[in-house]
């Protein structure tokens, strides 16, 4: 029997070799965790389309690339952040370049009372990776084995953080394809309130792979508004997994805007372990060219009397492909659960494709759950009506596209973030994103 040569990039042995050089190698618990994670990843490998959760997203693009870990690249000190509106929000800024925190660009010393930022030396044992299930998210195993910095944002009980925390993940690469692994945790204490904004930007270089993991825990009655703009370079790969756990009475609102990366996946797994919690997963994806954007969510209702609400709206042009997979699990004792899920795509050209897979698994009998998925084109009648009033075709199309995504944008609870994201999206649209 002739074995096919394995051309796939071998992340496992790559990181095995450099384990001693990664930050935190003096911490025994971390060494053990990294070793374990790498073993698991070595066994699982990069997910393939045979894996049901990865059915529509093929990782061949990264499988065949010879990535250099970003930690091998000396960190750059001089960098100008892109001036796009969403990067300018008034916030406590934390800047990562290639997954490593850049203190000179971050507000580490000016953080407010109720917020404590711990880095790898302070986090301590048994906190990192607690929410992760590597079988479910193999890429999170790779991240755990390979991250350079892990940031843990602790919001004290009862604290109400006056400004958003803004994590800006910047890619700064040269000619070699580079891989890095942004990693953070948010622990929102009881009755606390905080807005967390995440931006992913490609500043220099195009061929990189950003493999992000977030672990988010909301204690009783905590409110966390979590917004994310993924504007990575159009040739880059962005794979992100967020694990969220909601205790009783807590409110988690996640809104993602996906415009960047050639290949991207934003996976959110939320587990509701308390009653009267509210989990809102929302987003907009604007893709063109040959972009592939995957939004995969899973909500586990493991307690009664909670609600979940999902709305994703996609605009696809050229040969772009959108994927939405949404699973809602309502366990046997999770009575009076209320779940809603909607994925709508606007297809602007013939070459586009959208795959929508809702999955409802309901074991309780007193439950309200609904889901829907639609894919449609721009309304030609409306387009003609607008043009007949003197509005140019490009502007008319953008008006209709903005009208389509408006209902998702309207879901954002924070009015100033809503305005900022709305303006950012308008700018992209008028600059030609999803419009030729």
């Amino acid at each position, binding site marked *: 029997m002739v074995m096919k040569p394995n051309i796939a990039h071998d992340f496992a042995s790559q990181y095995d070799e450099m384990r001693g050089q990664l930050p935190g190698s003096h911490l025994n618990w971390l060494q053990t965790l990294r070793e374990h994670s790498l073993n698991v990843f070595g066994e699982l490998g990069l997910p393939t389309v045979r894996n049901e959760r990865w059915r529509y997203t093929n990782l061949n693009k990264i499988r065949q690339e010879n990535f250099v870990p970003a930690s091998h690249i000396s960190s750059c000190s001089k960098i100008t952040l892109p001036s796009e509106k969403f990067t300018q929000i008034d916030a406590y800024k934390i800047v990562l370049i290639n997954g490593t925190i850049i203190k000179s660009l971050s507000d580490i010393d000016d953080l407010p009372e109720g917020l404590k930022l711990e880095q790898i030396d302070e986090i301590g044992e048994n906190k990192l990776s607690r929410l992760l299930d590597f079988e479910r998210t193999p890429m999170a195993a790779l991240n755990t084995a390979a991250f350079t910095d892990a940031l843990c944002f602790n919001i004290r009980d009862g604290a109400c953080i006056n400004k958003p925390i803004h994590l800006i993940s910047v890619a700064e690469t040269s000619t070699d394809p580079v891989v890095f692994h942004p990693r953070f945790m948010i622990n929102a204490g009881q009755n606390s309130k905080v807005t967390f904004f995440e931006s992913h930007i490609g500043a220099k270089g195009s061929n990189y792979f950003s493999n992000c993991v977030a672990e988010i825990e909301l204690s009783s009655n905590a409110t966390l508004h979590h917004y994310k703009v993924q504007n990575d370079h159009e040739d880059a790969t962005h794979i992100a997994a967020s694990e969220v756990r909601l205790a009783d009475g807590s409110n988690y609102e996640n809104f993602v805007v996906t415009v960047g990366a050639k290949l991207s996946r934003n996976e959110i797994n939320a587990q509701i372990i308390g009653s009267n919690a509210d989990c809102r997963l929302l987003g907009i994806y604007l893709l063109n060219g040959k972009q592939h954007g995957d939004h995969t969510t899973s909500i586990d209702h493991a307690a009664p009397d909670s609600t979940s609400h999902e709305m994703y709206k996609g605009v696809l042009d050229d040969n772009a492909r959108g994927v939405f997979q949404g699973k809602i699990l309502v366990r046997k004792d999770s009575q009076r659960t209320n779940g809603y899920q909607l994925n709508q795509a606007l297809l602007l050209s013939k070459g586009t494709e959208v795959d929508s897979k809702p999955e409802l698994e309901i074991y309780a009998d007193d439950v309200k759950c609904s889901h829907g998925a639609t894919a449609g084109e721009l309304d030609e009648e409306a387009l*003609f009506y607008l043009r*007949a009033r003197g509005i140019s075709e490009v502007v008319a199309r953008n008006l209709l596209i903005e*009208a389509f995504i408006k209902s998702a944008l309207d879901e954002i609870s924070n009015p100033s973030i809503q305005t900022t994201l709305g303006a950012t999206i308008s700018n992209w649209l008028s600059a030609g994103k999803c419009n030729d």
Partner: protein
Amino acid sequence: MLKIKNLHVSIDGNEILRGIDLDLEAGKTYAIMGPNGSGKSTLSYVLAGSDKYTITDGTVSFNGKNLIGMNPEERAGEGLFLGFQYPVEIPGVATSTFLKTALNAVKKYRGEDELDAMQFLKLVRKKAEEIGISDEMLKRPVNVGFSGGEKKRNEVLQLAMLEPKLAVLDETDSGLDIDALKTVADGVNRLRGPKRSMLVITHYQRLLNYIVPDVIHVLVNGKIVATGAKDLAIELEKSGYSMFTDSQAA
């Protein structure tokens, strides 16, 4: 103002307009009447630049320019306005946003100064009030949930805002109650002037009591079969179109 010569138009291989000749002069008001399906809306859509139709023969010039070569937005910029028989609902686009975008697009095309938010608001409030459209309606998405009559008022508001040279009004009177008919007619009459032409498509002589036309054309089966003064409408009201359709069949 508008010169149509031997216009033949078909859709999906069916000829709908079969040789139309029309000459509209500045400052005059024209009416087109004709039975259902005779091609009145087809003519208005073709003038506005809809790409659903194929022009198989003929020419259309608008103030000396070839209209057929222009896209819909250029026609609007040049001063052509179509009041739609069935105004389109556009969820998610506020009426005031739509009006402002349209007005400034047309102003830009005409080389005039665009209006800022305050100037626009002042203007739109004044015109909306004249036509009986409330502030609240301006905030609502374009035509969504508007009653039939409200949609038609909204068409007249757009007409008043955009100040075209030629307004083609396709059944702007249908679905209006008696008071609304008067408001809408007043709105249209306010705009009449020596430099502006109106082409009013209607089924009812009643409208023509308010908007008195200089000339009435009768369109039957894709052709203009009769032309006359305003008395023609009264005649049609009595006898219907049978004399034209019968002669067609013969």
